[in-house]
């Protein structure tokens, strides 16, 4: 019998604490596969955020550090500047990266730090129980926008990829999702591209993944994945906003 699919090396065997159907698990796997395929495992250092993926370090067989909420890009900068030969990536949610961590991600990107950022945009704060994120859609009801997000009071969802693509330094900025097998393959490619670029010393790479939070959206996974297509993608268009080195070409 030939093995068609099994767990990648860099992904630990620990069961995750994620809710049933949560996309975090699948994206962890794609990151681990990319690292394995590029042979980077032994020199990769991951930076976990504060968010549901705070325990990401439990799920990867890699050197890892857990950063303070929002500061992963600064932590990654410190690591990369002290260990330039290592491959450094951050894995951050939208509260972590687009709210409290805004300054750190913008400036790491603007400096063109040679790191990779995997940005999990599920339009909500998961770990703390479903509060509004800067990425929450207008009208969406959350624990802190019980009447639905009102643009006149709190503005519109913030588009990090577009904003980061305004900066000169970033090498690669792309937005993908995992709500279908096809989309998932694309995301795999994007994440692998990002690490490839870092490996080649090409600078800052940023992959935004539109994800579901079945628990706090109050929707079963399948329905949630459809909701991504119907509601999130229209606001957060998929696509590549920067590809300095034509790696997708």
């Amino acid at each position: 019998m030939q093995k068609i699919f099994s767990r990648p090396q860099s992904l630990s065997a620990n069961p995750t604490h994620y809710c049933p159907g949560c996309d975090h698990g699948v994206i962890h796997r794609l990151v681990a596969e990319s690292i394995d395929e590029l042979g980077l495992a032994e020199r990769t250092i991951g930076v976990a955020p504060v968010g549901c993926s705070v325990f990401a370090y439990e799920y990867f067989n890699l050197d890892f550090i857990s950063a303070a909420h929002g500061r992963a890009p600064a932590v990654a900068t410190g690591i990369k500047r002290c260990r330039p030969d290592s491959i450094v990536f951050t894995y951050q949610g939208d509260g972590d990266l687009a709210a409290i961590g805004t300054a750190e991600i913008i400036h790491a990107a603007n400096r063109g730090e040679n790191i990779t950022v995997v940005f999990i945009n599920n339009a909500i704060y998961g770990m703390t129980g479903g509060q509004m994120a800067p990425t929450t859609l207008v009208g969406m009801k959350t624990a802190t926008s019980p009447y639905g997000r009102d643009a006149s009071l709190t503005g519109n969802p913030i588009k990090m990829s577009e904003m980061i693509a305004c900066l000169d330094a970033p090498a690669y900025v792309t937005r993908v999702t995992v709500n279908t097998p096809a989309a998932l393959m694309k995301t795999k490619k994007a994440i692998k591209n990002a690490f490839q670029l870092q490996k080649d010393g090409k600078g800052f790479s940023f992959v935004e993944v539109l994800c579901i939070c079945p628990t706090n959206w109050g929707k079963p996974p399948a329905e949630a994945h459809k909701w991504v297509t119907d509601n999130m993608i229209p606001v957060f268009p998929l696509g590549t906003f920067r590809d300095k080195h034509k790696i997708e070409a």
Partner: protein
Amino acid sequence: MPKWVINEDLCKGCGICIGRCPMKVLGVSDHLSAKGYHPTKMLNEEKCTSCALCARSCPDVAIEVYKA
């Protein structure tokens, strides 16, 4: 040796694999796992083409797929 192997301790019964299986050969088992979930089970292994779409869709990497 079976084509399709599931680790019931990892499966959280989210049902994603079932929905993604093109051959519709996966279903929900009625027993509860130790964690309190109804794990996915193989209904008809003959029809399974080992495409591994289920495995690749599983957030918990609970499925392994083999081909004869």
